[in-house]
């Protein structure tokens, strides 16, 4: 099923080479793609690049897009895949060139409460997200940041709903420990 007549119409026109129609799709869905990409990668040059890559891939796949899922869900799935690829590349670069003591310290003790380099709540929360494994972070981004249902999250990540729930449970547990009082103040 296609999300709305507008999206269906825009996709049909974009398939025929109408760039204005595709631009409308970009403008309409860039916010959802941005939440996924920024949630997974944080702010930076990579995020913009991955956002563009998402729409380029969608453009290339227009002919094969059947509308089984909504345009937004399809785009978020592509965005997640691109973000995971970018994270893998980042990790390879870091392994090759960077030996950051702080990163090594946090990798050694992922449950430690974040205090080092604390320049505000946003930085602390970003650091806590970055400490989650990519699998758990993906669930947190879709379920908590993007407010997707368990079912949609499972559809996007192509995993069973039970796996979404167990990953969410583990991620929330880790965030609770890592953020300590900040988490408690807000959620309990």
């Amino acid at each position: 099923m296609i999300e709305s007549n507008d999206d269906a119409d825009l996709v049909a026109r974009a398939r025929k080479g109408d760039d204005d129609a595709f631009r409308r799709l970009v403008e309409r869905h860039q916010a959802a793609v941005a939440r996924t990409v920024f949630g997974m990668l944080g702010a930076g040059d990579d995020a913009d690049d991955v956002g563009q890559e998402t729409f380029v891939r969608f453009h290339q796949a227009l002919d094969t897009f059947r509308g089984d899922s909504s345009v937004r869900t399809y785009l978020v799935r592509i965005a997640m895949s691109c973000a995971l690829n970018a994270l893998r590349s980042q990790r390879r670069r870091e392994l090759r060139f960077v030996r950051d003591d702080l990163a090594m310290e946090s990798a050694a003790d992922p449950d430690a409460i974040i205090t080092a380099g604390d320049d505000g709540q946003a930085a602390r929360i970003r650091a806590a997200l970055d400490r989650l494994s990519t699998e758990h972070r993906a669930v947190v981004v879709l379920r908590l940041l993007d407010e997707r249902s368990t079912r949609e999250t499972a559809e996007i990540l192509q995993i069973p709903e039970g796996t979404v729930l167990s990953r969410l449970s583990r991620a929330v547990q880790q965030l609770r420990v890592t953020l300590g009082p900040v988490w408690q103040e807000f959620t309990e």
Partner: protein
Amino acid sequence: MTGNDGMSDQTPPDDTTVRAAGQLLRGALPPMTFSDGFADRTMARIARERAAPPPDVLRFGAMQRNFRWLAAAAALAIVALGAHNTLIARTADSSLFEAALGLQPVSAESILSSSSDSFQ
């Protein structure tokens, strides 16, 4: 991304916790939007990629060029080896073809003697 964590012993967080956690994250993190002109940049990139030949074509071209060099080098090596065999290793009772390939002259006696050697 597939997989099943098999975490049946973990209770999923309730809706209130999920909502509160979502509010905490969304409220604390900076706005998650692309900078101005994102659509322009994206459309420009699509136009660039449309104009450029697809990577498969580039890869095939590079393979073709490399293969030309490899094929020429292999042909030269075959000719040089054949010439070497013909000039250096040719014996009186071998043909030019056998000499070029470096084949030893074969007779019934040599076959029988080699097979009886292998049984011992």
